[in-house]
């Protein structure tokens, strides 16, 4: 007997809840209050980042009409690393580390969102159907920014370079609770809006011309969706650092496990799967294996493998 997609979503939510609970209480020792406080911050960051990246990727894949793409492909990661490197060069390693966390987080989020919206608007002036152009422009921008970052990193001294390295790997251990308190309501609003426009995204998946013919203002919808994606990814990246392939893992697993094309279910499902990957992964790493290694490295590795698998299994059209 097949389970309805809505019920599968609830099931996914329950599994996520259990995983989060396990992460919080497994091996909890005195002083309970202090350790629990740290764990709550960490699990909240994991949930927020995973859910943001998962939801954003599903929407990006729909407007791009491509199940292999992630928002990272339009140069988000490269811009984030460039931003960090520039800050270290301008302020020095010590100056960078002593930056107040909240303004830094807000500036990073705003810069990333503004850059993404500017890129989208620039490219989409020729029509929102030109996703290939958008993606290629993003890739070229990414290469340019990585080149510039590489050059800038060469002029850093080793200790400052270590600061940049530390800042540009996705980590969940050093998230400020205040950052979370700003990011969480923003995420909730963006996610609610994304779910609300879900039915329009269902129609948009038929392609620009077909959805225009069905009365959807496709260009406006795409611009709105890209803005929402920019916000989600900017917040996630500014909070924890870039994880390129997490979205691909979350979107692919959500689509396979939920079995529907409806975005009202698919978006929260991808958000739940993204969060589950991070929470469960970090739980296994920290609690069961006792590693302190960066989970992001494993997520990137598995995501990269999935990407290759999806590319290779694709039938020529």
């Amino acid at each position, binding site marked *: 007997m097949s389970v309805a997609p809505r019920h599968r979503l609830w099931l996914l939510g329950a599994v996520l809840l259990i995983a989060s609970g396990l992460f919080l209480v497994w091996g909890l020792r005195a002083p309970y209050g202090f350790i629990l406080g740290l764990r709550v911050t960490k699990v909240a960051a994991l949930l927020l980042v995973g859910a943001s990246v998962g939801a954003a990727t599903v929407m990006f894949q729909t407007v791009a009409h491509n199940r292999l793409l992630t928002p990272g492909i339009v140069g988000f990661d490269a811009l984030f690393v460039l931003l960090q490197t520039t800050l270290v060069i301008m302020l020095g390693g010590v100056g960078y580390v002593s930056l107040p966390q909240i303004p830094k987080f807000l500036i990073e989020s705003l810069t990333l969102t503004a850059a993404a919206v500017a890129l989208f608007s620039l490219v989409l002036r020729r029509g929102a159907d030109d996703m290939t152009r958008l993606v290629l422009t993003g890739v070229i921008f990414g290469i340019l920014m990585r080149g510039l970052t590489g050059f800038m990193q060469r002029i850093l001294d080793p200790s400052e370079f270590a600061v940049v390295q530390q800042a540009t790997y996705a980590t969940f251990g050093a998230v400020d609770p205040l950052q979370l308190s700003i990011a969480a309501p923003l995420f909730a609003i963006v996610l609610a809006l994304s779910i609300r426009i879900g039915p329009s995204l269902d*129609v948009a*998946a038929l392609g620009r*011309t*077909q959805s*225009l*013919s069905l*009365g959807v203002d496709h260009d406006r919808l795409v611009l709105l969706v890209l803005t929402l994606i920019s916000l989600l990814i900017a917040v996630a990246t500014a909070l924890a650092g870039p994880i390129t392939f997490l979205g691909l893992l979350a979107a692919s697993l959500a*689509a396979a496990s939920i079995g529907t094309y409806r975005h009202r279910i698919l978006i929260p499902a991808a958000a739940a799967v993204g969060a589950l990957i991070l929470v469960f992964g970090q739980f296994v790493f920290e609690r069961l294996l006792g590693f302190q290694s960066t989970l992001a490295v494993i997520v990137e590795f598995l995501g990269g493998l999935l990407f290759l698998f999806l590319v290779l299994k694709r039938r020529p059209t």
Partner: protein
Amino acid sequence: MIRIASLDLHRDGQPILQDVTARIPPTGLTAIIGPNGAGKSTLLHCIAGLLVPHAGKVMIGDDDIATLKPQDRAHRVALLTQSPAIVPRLSVRDLVAFGRWPHHRGRPKQQDHDQVDEALALFDLNDLEHRKLDSLSGGQRQRAFVAMAYAQSTPWMLLDEPLAALDPRYARDIMERLHNLSRPGPDSRSVVIVLHDLGMAARYADWIVSLKDGQLVHSAPREQAMTTENLSALFDTGLAVQTVGGKSIVIPV
């Protein structure tokens, strides 16, 4: 009635449509024919209001299609594009239900479900309604897309080469259904269809709009437009129109 007046459209400096003036009668099946690159699909997209011409206009009834809002336009014309995207995990019923989107904007009512049932029945899709699109044959899938356009309940149905890549059995099946749909009756629709298959145009069309190099050649009843001389001149090759068993056929000579 659709009136096309002095339509001009160019792309990257190249003229695609040049001073096209034509009319399409409000009843029956109209075929847009012409050689490759003649501007047939572009003309159809202009009629649907999805391409805005650089000069001229398309009037549907008393309205200039370019001035209508997307939602109002979707109540007047239903366009089926040449290669619509196949959404994974989408069932036939879900696809046909998309046709009702302009009417409910995401909140379907009983009337919308009834219209979907009617479209499924009309195109013999009841047995396939729960099948996923990517598991269907090309002919079945195309039938589902045409049913979606029908479910949109617009007076005009515009179809861009719906027979492409279909074998003769499926192509004929689709044309029979569209032809029947365009006959006068309570649920009758005006059908405008871009066709490459001249045999199908000769067999089923009531009105012909023919284009060559972006210019109108004929906008006339089929009997006048599809003659041996006209078709041979249109396609720059020998084509003969003959009658077999009371039906017109086109053969290369």
